[in-house]
């Protein structure tokens, strides 16, 4: 075999399933407690996404990431770029929560909360509404292009596209006030191009991404694109909650005549699985859960609901497919509190408490004091020494503020040229001069503390900042 054939052979044999033609998964609809929970989550999360943008709070949009003004409004809180640290903190907490919940309960995120799952669910729902159930969809796929097919497919595309564009519009509405954005969209639709070019771009871009990911790619996003699906095995252990088929109870599976024959003859034990393949038909990623834990499983629990119904019909106990752990399947005790769970939980609660405390105690004033770089000190006359500082005052509040500056530990005269007035969101730069009587100074470098205070809504807020006073002593 020459090299080219050899490599071609390798592609065909080992990787062939990776490059096999993708076949659309027509998942059968299933009802049951877990699917009800998933539907509730879907309505909740989609409702939150589409609704939150329209809620107003205190005269502004409740959640608005105003990038041009560089302010993030989240209800009563306003975040400035200087608060970036909170965002980083939040991301660390999000990552840690993912570790924690994955170790504890497997792919809860994938099955119930991941946007990919939630939007796919919405798209599948629309498809089902227009094209009918699994059988009808397959039939429509095979049927020639007649009026019925054009009508149904056209309607589906219309529904998908409008939903996607609405999604894109809502996303941009979190960055540009959504009411103004809506007005400019209406203007644009009536022929007067009022929408900004970048807003147009992002609405179309995000809309298209939603359309492609939820309409066509679906489970392939989880199988081929999602990094979390690949590295989650590192977070799993034998006590992690997984969805699994009870092989011991189910096998050997059999169905139909063979099954009734065996049951009647009573020769050898038969498993509870009647091989109805419903668990395969309902699976949105098209796998067979009976083959064991697979990385394709997104933990949607559709197979649990499907199997429980069948077990009920055939008078067998539920839970042939169920939420369980590897230890439990091996008849060992499942340990809930493992070292990693305890460590994650402690870290997470510490970070969370600190985060809330830091946000609650966030000062609407940030101060930076730089000493004048040119001169260490100025000798005014025989009695007075002067030092110059540069103040940077950032007003993180919502109202314009005037500030007062005092010095602790030193009897000094504070003077500055301009009024200490800073508009909301601005940084005021101000040279401040301290004049001190030489007799007051005991050493060449004296530590001092500035107290900067202001009044916000009748409450005095002060920030102290350390610096040094130099003299020729």
């Amino acid at each position: 075999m020459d090299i080219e054939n050899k490599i071609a052979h390798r592609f065909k044999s080992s990787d062939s399933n990776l490059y096999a033609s993708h076949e659309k998964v027509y998942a059968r609809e299933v009802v049951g407690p877990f699917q009800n929970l998933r539907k509730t989550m879907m309505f909740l999360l989609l409702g939150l996404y589409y609704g939150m943008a329209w809620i107003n709070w205190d005269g502004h949009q409740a959640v608005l990431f105003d990038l041009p003004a560089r302010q993030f409004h989240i209800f009563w809180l306003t975040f400035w770029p200087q608060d970036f640290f909170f965002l980083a903190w939040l991301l660390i907490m999000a990552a840690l929560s993912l570790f924690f919940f994955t170790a504890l309960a497997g792919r809860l995120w994938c099955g119930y909360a991941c946007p990919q799952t939630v939007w796919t669910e919405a798209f599948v729902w629309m498809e089902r509404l227009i094209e009918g159930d699994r059988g009808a969809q397959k039939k429509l796929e095979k049927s020639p292009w007649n009026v019925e097919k054009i009508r149904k497919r056209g309607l589906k595309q219309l529904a998908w596209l409008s939903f996607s564009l609405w999604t894109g519009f809502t996303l941009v509405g979190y960055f540009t006030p959504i009411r103004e954005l809506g007005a400019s969209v209406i203007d644009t639709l009536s022929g007067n191009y009022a929408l900004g070019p970048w807003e147009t771009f992002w609405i179309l871009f995000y809309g298209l991404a939603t359309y492609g990911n939820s309409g066509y790619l679906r489970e392939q996003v989880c199988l081929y694109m999602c990094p979390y699906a690949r590295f989650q095995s590192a977070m799993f252990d034998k006590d992690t909650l997984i969805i699994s088929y009870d092989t011991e109870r189910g096998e050997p599976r059999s169905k139909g005549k063979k099954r009734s024959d065996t049951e009647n003859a009573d020769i050898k034990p038969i498993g509870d699985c009647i091989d109805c393949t419903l668990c395969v038909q309902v699976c949105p990623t098209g796998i067979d859960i009976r083959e064991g834990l697979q990385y394709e499983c997104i933990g949607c629990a559709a197979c649990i609901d499907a199997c429980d119904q069948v077990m009920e019909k055939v008078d067998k106990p539920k839970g042939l497919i169920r939420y369980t752990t590897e230890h439990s399947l091996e008849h060992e005790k499942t340990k809930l509190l493992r070292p990693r769970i305890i460590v994650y939980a402690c870290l997470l609660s510490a970070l969370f408490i600190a985060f809330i405390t830091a946000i609650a105690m966030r000062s609407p004033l940030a101060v930076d004091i730089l000493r004048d770089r040119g001169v260490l000190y100025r000798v005014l006359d025989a009695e007075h020494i002067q030092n110059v500082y540069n103040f940077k005052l950032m007003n993180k509040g919502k109202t314009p503020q005037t500030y007062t500056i005092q010095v602790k530990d030193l009897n000094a005269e504070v003077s500055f040229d301009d009024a200490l007035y800073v508009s909301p969101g601005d940084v005021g730069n101000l040279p401040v001069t301290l004049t001190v009587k030489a007799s007051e100074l005991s050493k060449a470098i004296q530590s001092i503390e500035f107290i900067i205070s202001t009044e916000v809504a009748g409450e005095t807020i002060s920030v102290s900042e350390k610096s040094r006073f130099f003299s020729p002593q």
Partner: protein
Amino acid sequence: MFKIVITQLEKVVPEAELQAKVLWRSIAVMAWVSFMFAGLASMLFFATFEPTILASLATFSLNWSAQAVYTIGFLLFWLFGFMTTVVSAILLALPLVKREKSLPE
């Protein structure tokens, strides 16, 4: 650049149909990975630097709005990330002569 990838692919995978699949899958993975990190990079970068000031300090006169700087910045991060992954992919795919030696009989 894609020409190189395609010529390499033609040697490795004989069937045209499979070639297209391998190519598209590789492009999709590269575009997706660079997209994720472009998002992260933009967030970190623009949280640190004010876009309109950056535009006004540019060597060429850029009269761009904040939205323009954010969007173009993100797209540039994406483009460069994509180019990085493309070149990495080309270099990671060993030349055919080396491949022959590494293959089992």
